[in-house]
């Protein structure tokens, strides 16, 4: 998810309106804009230079839904052909029955998912009128038992780590199943409540220390120390 390539370089904090690169050889990426010769930041965050591209990695802000994001949501209401859901975003989201890859009795949708139930799904489209979800995909579906925690959506790439390394480490150390939604909702399920709480602690540790370089080693230490 994140490009750890430049992790050794000191990342610079920028504020909106600040010039981050001068000259024609740079290309403006996310959170930046070209103004004449210069590239100016439009958001508050850390600058990342990857070859020619200059972009700002935001540190704060609400979840901005994008097509293809895997999210964890909660059922808010049931209509005749699907579920109205809450996915921690400014826009309303809908999960149609047709997007569930199994047979559902249309007359009793609540038997599959009732109001208040959590599920993982993928965003199939983002339109002006709202977001459409789908459950067609591996590992998507209703979430049973476990624990739901909320984190800052901007920290999600750090929780997952490079090619899922961080989340794998936490899963292995705590013996929990963990699903991290791009919207900052995390589902944890373990054998017992102690394991789940331990996972929660580890995830919050990663979220709070996401600026530290060599975070994976730090987390390993943390897990070893806390595990007793």
């Amino acid at each position, binding site marked *: 998810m994140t490009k750890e390539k430049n992790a050794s370089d000191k990342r610079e*904090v920028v*504020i*909106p*309106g*600040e010039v981050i690169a001068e000259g024609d050889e740079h290309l403006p990426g996310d*959170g930046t804009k070209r103004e004449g010769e210069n590239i*100016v930041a*439009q*958001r*508050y*965050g*850390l600058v990342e230079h990857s070859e020619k591209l200059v972009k700002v990695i*935001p*540190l*704060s*802000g*609400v979840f*901005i839904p994008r097509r293809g994001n895997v999210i964890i949501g909660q059922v808010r209401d049931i209509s005749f052909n699907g579920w109205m859901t809450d996915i921690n975003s*400014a*826009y*309303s989201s809908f999960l149609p029955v047709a997007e569930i890859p199994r047979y559902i009795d249309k007359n009793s949708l609540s038997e599959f998912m009732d109001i208040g139930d959590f599920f993982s799904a993928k965003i199939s489209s983002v339109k*002006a009128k709202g977001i459409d979800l789908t459950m067609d995909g591996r590992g998507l579906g209703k979430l049973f038992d476990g624990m739901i925690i909320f984190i800052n959506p*901007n920290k999600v790439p750090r929780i997952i780590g490079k090619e899922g390394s961080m989340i794998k480490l936490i899963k292995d150390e705590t013996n929990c199943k963990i699903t991290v939604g791009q919207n900052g909702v995390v589902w944890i399920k373990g054998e017992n409540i102690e394991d789940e709480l331990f996972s929660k602690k580890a995830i919050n540790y990663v979220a*709070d*220390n996401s*600026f*530290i370089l060599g975070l994976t080693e730090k987390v390993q230490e943390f897990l070893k120390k806390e595990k007793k």
Partner: protein
Amino acid sequence: MTETKRTDGRKSDETRKIEAKVGVVPNADGSAMFSFGDTKAIAAVYGPKQLHPQHMQNPETGILRVNYNMMSFSVSDRIRPGPNKRSTEISKISEWALMPAVLIGEFPNTVVDVHIMIPQADASTRCAGINAASLALAHAGIPMKDLICSVSIGKLDKQLVVDVDKDEEDYEEGEGATDIAMSFLVNENKMTHIQLDGNISTKELKEAVELGRKTCKEIYEIQKKALKESIGGEE
């Protein structure tokens, strides 16, 4: 122009002690505190989030909604809490002052709520409020063109002064006191808001605006430092 000492011993182009800090409200998406001496403002930003009532939704762009309020204990005479004519006006003024900097066009049908609270007032509260709100908006990760800096320039009799406090606002000798609150987009050097209370000649007004422009550059550096250092602290 004669250099008259101000009541608190400041030079005519000197502001009160400025303090700025971000992340003061943990539950908000972004927050900041900004103070000019005894004037203190706290701003909290929420959103972009779904806008209710629905008829206010704009399918072309997101909207900014500012809510300014003085706390009942902020002045020596207790003020009745809740919206009043003055706070409603300042809310709208602050909204217009901040609007040119925020780029929320890509979030249609949503709202960004800014709540400005004044826990302690000693004149220039709207300027402190706008400065705090601008920091809080940046801290909340809202796309912005630039930060907004705001300052009040006063005219005491014939002397232009920077950052008016309560004693100066009530100055009555000679021509009396004039209070001009103004806000700028610092990097673009453009003005987003100006309000004038009192009498002033066009020539003096131009001087006052130039003085405001200069002071806002100083304020900008303090805001910049506050935002940059908030990350270092978490490291």
